[in-house]
């Protein structure tokens, strides 16, 4: 069994159960060894379409329009943050920040090398 430190922001705090504060929720979720982001979403009963920017231990793993992280394997005590769809992270404030390998590969497919503020428009 592994325990995940889950942070849910904005309207996603409704998936926080009893641990909800104004604008966010922080809860611990127990999952079996080898569990993935998809397993965590299932445990939270949160459809993946409802989340946008996502971090695992401070590494960007997904943004709206790009979710290459569903099979990302989680480890014990990982900190996972799910953001609502009205959040944002403009490129100039993201360039050179820590990015998960799977997300970096996904950006590499982009002809503009991922230089966008948003990937859904």
């Amino acid at each position, binding site marked *: 069994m592994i325990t995940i430190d889950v942070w849910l922001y904005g309207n996603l705090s409704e998936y926080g159960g009893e641990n909800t504060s104004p604008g*966010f929720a922080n809860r611990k979720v127990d999952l079996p060894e080898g569990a993935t982001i998809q397993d965590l979403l299932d445990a939270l009963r949160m459809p993946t379409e409802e989340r946008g920017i996502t971090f695992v231990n401070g590494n960007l793993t997904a943004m709206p329009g790009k979710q290459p992280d569903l099979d990302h394997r989680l480890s014990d005590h990982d900190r996972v943050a799910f953001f609502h769809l009205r959040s944002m992270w403009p490129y100039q404030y993201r*360039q050179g920040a*820590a990015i998960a390998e799977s997300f970096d590969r996904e950006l590499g497919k982009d002809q503009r090398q991922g230089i966008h*503020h948003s990937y859904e428009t």
Partner: protein
Amino acid sequence: MWFLRINMSDRTHQFTEVPEKYKYFAGRALTSNLIADEVPPPAHPLGPNNKLVFSPGFMTGTSAPTSSRISVGGKSPLTGGIKESNAGTPWAWKIARMRIKALIVEGQPEDKGAFWGVVIGWDKEAEQPTLEWFDATEYAGQNAYDIYPKVYEKFEGRRISVCSIGLASEHAYGNAGVIFEDMSQRPSRYAGRGGLGSVMGSKGLKFILLDDSGAPGVEIVDKDLFDEGRKKMVAALQEHAITKPKGGLNTYGTAVLINILNEAGGLPTRNFASGRFEDAAKIAGEAIFEGNKKRLGKELYNHACSPGCIIRCSNTWHREDKTEHVSCVEYESDWAFGANLEINDLDVIAELIKLCNGYGLDTIETGVTLGVAMEAGVLPFGDGEAAIKMVHQMGKGEPMGRILGSGTGMAGKVLGVTRVPAVKGQGMPAYEPRAVKGIGITYATSTMGADHTAGYTIAPEILGVSAQLDPLSPEGKAALSRAFQATTAFIDSSGHCLFIAFAILDIESGFEGLIEEANGVLGTSWTADDVVNFGTEVLKVERKFNEAAGFSKEEDRIPEFMHTEPLPPHNVVFEIDDETLDKVYGEI
């Protein structure tokens, strides 16, 4: 179009035609060119040879959306270099509609205790602006929230817009901003950075009031082309997730970035000792929205800071009794007084912002300097009450307040602190360069000192960057920062708010719209390449001024501690080498 020169040595003024050289400049391009042409680079920023220039952008005063920005330029008392700081305000809209392309304040009165105000109006018969003086000494020494109502009352019956300085400028602080009114006559819109308020104060000018009754509005050479561009810009802003109604900015304001940067490990905390603040979520944009909802019993979306803004990102924070506490809790202000000082209470943060607005202080510089003072043990981290008292000391001109009012770099020296987050003396904004390395390159090399608005991303493919260079190579990183700084200099000259960049990077027709708007107003036939070239020329002028003022590439550096102290939670240092930093302007 007019140049208005106000000479404070003998209180005279002059309206002149715009010289040919400056015909196609506006906003930052015009303030920086005028400062470079007319201010000797070695001039003391608070002496008679410095000048203060106000210029609205190309599109300011037109129906182009989100375009009511005013640029203010001068030699900065904070950095010692050239400075442009801009604000969104009805004042910008009005000066543009009176066809004043630049307002240049020059000279210095001999009487240091007296303050003056001017009212600029429009003579419909003569078809030109007018100017009248009034003695403003009675308004000195007071809080802006107290004197603004008195000024509106004094000119009751006229459509007055207010630009002023506050107490911080009367004390000649390096962190004093120029204050502009917002749409509800609050003294809350700031050309905050670089101490330009003190340049205005050093000239004995307290108020510049505008009454645009009868003014003709902005002349547009090709109205059809302008309209075509304007419509594209409106469509892009209304479509993009960040800028659309009830989108990210309209709902949560700029403070929507607090939780994001915190999770990314890039939210500077405890005077840049960590990249993560454990209570960040309690002060974030989402908490502001939900906090207001709980206190007011209804959802509150944000408002426009200036005429014609359709993004509407300015928020208000309300007290328990539902009364308004302050507008606006921006990301930078929220962070500067929150995570940076380890203060987790939005009511305290709101009070600190309100005090800055009232005293005429730049919230970023004030918060970053307080962080350094906390590091020095002058007051404890996390102590909101002590922070509030310290800002009062700044406003009242008490000795420690004066030291902190001099800005982050100077206060760090006086207090013997080694962790001083500043570049060219200017306090660093809310993105940690060790965690977000791209912004670090821009902080280090910008002509403005550490500035989070110096390198916005609008359209990389027009820059010739991505096609030719590996963005991870030193050349690529330098080229990107240079391109971002150049395109930002163009937006800063357009009158548009930088936040149009969010939409026009992702929606190509929005970028076309920007160029068509400019060509429509000016009758030019600029292309996308001209946008970059225009911005590059502005940067060259600014860089040349700074070099003549004594700056060398050694000033284009990130503070030493960021190279040596690993930043939690990623435990990384700033590893961009000097060679890369030097390429940004070395290869311009």
